[in-house]
């Protein structure tokens, strides 16, 4: 690693066109990825601002900071922004977009224009949703449960619903684009079982996006239609069934948690292999675990409804499948750890994020067992226990993975290196802050504090104060990368093509890559993660 002596390549995708137009109308998957990076980061900040308001309010038991209405709007918008505009697109639309063509040796995605269209659909969807914030807010929770959302709520449900509906197409088209790309655009010799696991994970994710999102889209349109035209499909007062909505909603929204976590798992597979300079242990098991999770993940939605009056036998089936889907996730964790065994484990930033991910994901996954346990879920569902659980998976898991990936591929994306010490510190601060924030919520959840409570009994205050205090540590952790990564754009060391000495086609081109990704189409003659690096000129 003698990166200081290396120079930036003279031409690359970043300096190929400097006008605003060359960015806004780009068909280059790498530039589109950066458009997403900016937009997704913005929505993360918006969602985080709402989280700050929540944690400030909950520092005292009385609802004294915000009014009831505003508190409800704030937690709703926190959920909507984070789920639909940050967690779901973050890894696929940014890193997936950037890396899939590079990792399979392609010039671009199969449909570059469609890719740009996806971005604008996402953008328009977000405008609608943002509009609902200023035109009366949204107070339905991100789950839009009927009949509250259809007949009782007086907030701006329709614009938000339309925003989410529109945004859904962005995910569907991106998924479609990935599937076709992975099938059709692989470089010569890049067989299915030579694909990086990041690509496998995105393949599984894309299947869910394409098959599941339409159901959400229809459901959310039905909610809007019911408000506008009074259809009554979900309204018991006119013979409708409010619980039908829950089935439709969770049919998508459970798999959606895998849309959020599978790509992050794909990142971890890459980062473990590169950090240990070793082939991922049990490659095929990890690859098929992704597919298995995607398939079984479609059959467990009823675990959100154990107390909604579904039949005990339906509940039984949903419960057993929810337990079974835990196994492939566990298999992945074991394989990552086995990958480290006798590796050459780097202590650079990506490995710190990997360690953080594994720790938080382990707790997130294991607490999922509590909730799959029906007899226990009756007590735990709709309490802070569940809030803690899914934040461990989606924030501890997905964001750790996402940030790990950003740190790992940052030199590839920008051509420059950030300060590695600050990188490691941020990983540690996030890990500590995260646990301080969310661990107390498990405790207060088992005590029985319901979620979405603006005010709460006094005996829960100490735990809530701990959580709010932890959140301020967490906020520092999330802000740090923003600064040192931005700083690196101008002042960072030139990274060189392969600063981590990793294998993978993306490291066989310049940093940043040229617009066409590779000067000549690569021919793959080696297995995934085969060290030492088989390509000349990049000896580690």
């Amino acid at each position: 690693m003698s990166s200081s002596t290396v120079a930036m390549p003279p031409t690359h995708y970043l300096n190929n066109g400097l006008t605003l137009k060359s960015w806004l109308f780009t068909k280059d998957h790498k530039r589109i990825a950066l458009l997403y990076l900016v937009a997704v980061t913005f929505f993360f900040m918006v969602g985080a601002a709402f989280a700050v308001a929540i944690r400030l309010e909950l520092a005292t038991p009385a609802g004294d900071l915000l009014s009831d209405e505003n508190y409800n709007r704030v937690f709703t918008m926190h959920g909507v922004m984070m789920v639909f505009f940050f967690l779901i697109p973050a890894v696929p639309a940014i890193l997936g977009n950037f890396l899939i063509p590079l990792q399979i040796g392609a010039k671009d995605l199969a449909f570059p224009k469609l890719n740009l269209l996806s971005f604008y659909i996402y953008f328009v969807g977000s405008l609608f949703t943002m509009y609902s914030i200023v035109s009366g807010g949204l107070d339905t929770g991100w789950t839009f449960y009927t009949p509250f959302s259809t007949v009782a709520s007086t907030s701006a449900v329709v614009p938000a619903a339309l925003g989410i509906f529109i945004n859904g197409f962005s995910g569907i088209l991106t998924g479609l684009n990935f599937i076709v790309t992975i099938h059709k655009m692989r470089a010569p010799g890049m067989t299915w079982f030579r694909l990086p696991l990041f690509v496998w994970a995105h393949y599984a994710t894309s299947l869910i996006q394409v098959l599941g999102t339409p159901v959400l889209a229809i459901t959310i349109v039905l909610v809007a239609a019911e408000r506008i035209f009074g259809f009554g499909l979900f309204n018991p007062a006119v013979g409708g069934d409010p619980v039908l909505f829950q089935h439709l909603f969770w049919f998508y929204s459970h798999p959606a948690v895998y849309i959020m976590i599978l790509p992050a798992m794909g990142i971890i597979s890459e980062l473990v292999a590169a950090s240990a300079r070793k082939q991922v242990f049990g490659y095929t098991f990890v690859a098929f675990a992704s597919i298995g999770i995607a398939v079984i993940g479609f059959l467990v939605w009823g675990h959100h409804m154990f107390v909604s009056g579904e039949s005990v036998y339906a509940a039984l089936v949903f419960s057993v499948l929810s337990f079974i889907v835990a196994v492939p996730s566990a298999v992945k964790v074991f394989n990552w750890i086995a990958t480290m065994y006798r590796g050459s484990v780097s202590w650079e930033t990506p490995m710190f994020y990997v360690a953080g991910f594994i720790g938080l994901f382990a707790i997130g996954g294991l607490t999922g067992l509590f909730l799959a346990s029906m007899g226990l879920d009756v007590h735990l569902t709709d309490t802070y226990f569940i809030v803690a659980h899914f934040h461990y998976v989606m924030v501890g898991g997905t964001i750790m993975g996402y940030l790990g990936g950003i740190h790992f591929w940052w030199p590839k994306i920008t051509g420059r290196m950030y300060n590695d010490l600050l990188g490691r510190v941020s990983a540690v601060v996030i890990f500590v802050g995260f646990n301080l924030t969310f661990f107390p919520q498990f405790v207060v959840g088992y005590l029985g504090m319901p979620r979405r409570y603006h005010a709460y009994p006094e005996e829960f205050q100490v735990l809530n104060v701990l959580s709010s205090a932890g959140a301020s540590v967490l906020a520092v952790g999330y802000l740090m990368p923003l600064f040192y990564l931005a700083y690196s754009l101008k002042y960072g060391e030139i990274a060189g093509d392969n600063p981590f000495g990793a294998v993978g086609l993306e490291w066989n081109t310049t940093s940043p890559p040229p617009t066409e990704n590779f000067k000549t189409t690569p021919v793959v003659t080696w297995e995934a993660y085969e060290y030492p690096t088989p390509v000349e000129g990049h000896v580690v």
Partner: protein
Amino acid sequence: MRSGTPLFPEAASTIAPRVDALYLFLVGLTAFMTILIAALVVIFMIKYKRRDPNSIGARIHGGMALEIIWSIIPLFIVLGIFVWATGIFFDIARPPAETMNIYATGKQWMWKFQHLDGQREINELHVPVGRKVKMIMTSEDVIHDLYVPAFRVKADVIPGRYSHIWFEATKAGEYHLFCAEYCGTQHSGMIGKVVVMEPDDFQAWLSGGVQEGSLASAGSKLFQDLACNTCHRPDAQGRGPVLQNLFGKTVTLASGENVVVDEAYIRESILTPSQKVTAGFQPTMPTFQGLVSEEGILQLIEYVKSLKTDMPVSAVRPNTGGPAPNENTPAQAPPTRN
């Protein structure tokens, strides 16, 4: 309800210790696995730390035996947990045959309770120690959820349906009662308390309240006010079926379908009578949609349930003190025969 900062909830029902046992087992499992995983990560990071910047890891591709071991063992563990948890769930979800029933109606943002003896409460629920209590619950507007953490039970309270929870309290005291399903502006204000009393105290409380007459007698009054009795007569001379001994029975519908008469069926009969027409009768019963409240429907249900024989309601529940309504005298003009 306690002061200070408890870290573990009170356990005040028969099911609570069983839920806690499973919980503590899972906490143990989670702690063990997390520590194991974290330890392995840290140990491998230290032991195999890259010292030479050019070194690479050992060439190990995988191991079938290991993959099988670490798939099968977790599979059996989770299936074991599944069996354990499902056993508890079935006991929570299926109320025992003999219960003391209390009706609950949720609405934005309060809980209303009606005891069979006629006591009504708002946001406060009195129950005795040692009795199996079943809550029969519905909502007037959106979905709510009745949750008593100390009992470890909750269930959604859904408009247009009856849902149940049941519990047997084991410890006198006051416990939180929450709405656990987000229901709008004052969701977090839709709370109250459960007051668990020793059986004697409870009896005293029951008889100390306002004497409005039993729930069934309130239903009986409604039955006459709404002129149900013009068509439903114990002597089978009305236009509608005899309702005596109806509850729990299986009736055949005009469509040929068989249904068991439960709370939901009676509710449907009152609100959408043409949906399920009883075989042998004309669909002449009018809908009472909008004419009777959810609580009124519950009273009617309780009245129908009380019609065990053709005796008037006061004979069935002699201790309620209300006057015995005379069912055989129609409140309005006698029905016309078809």
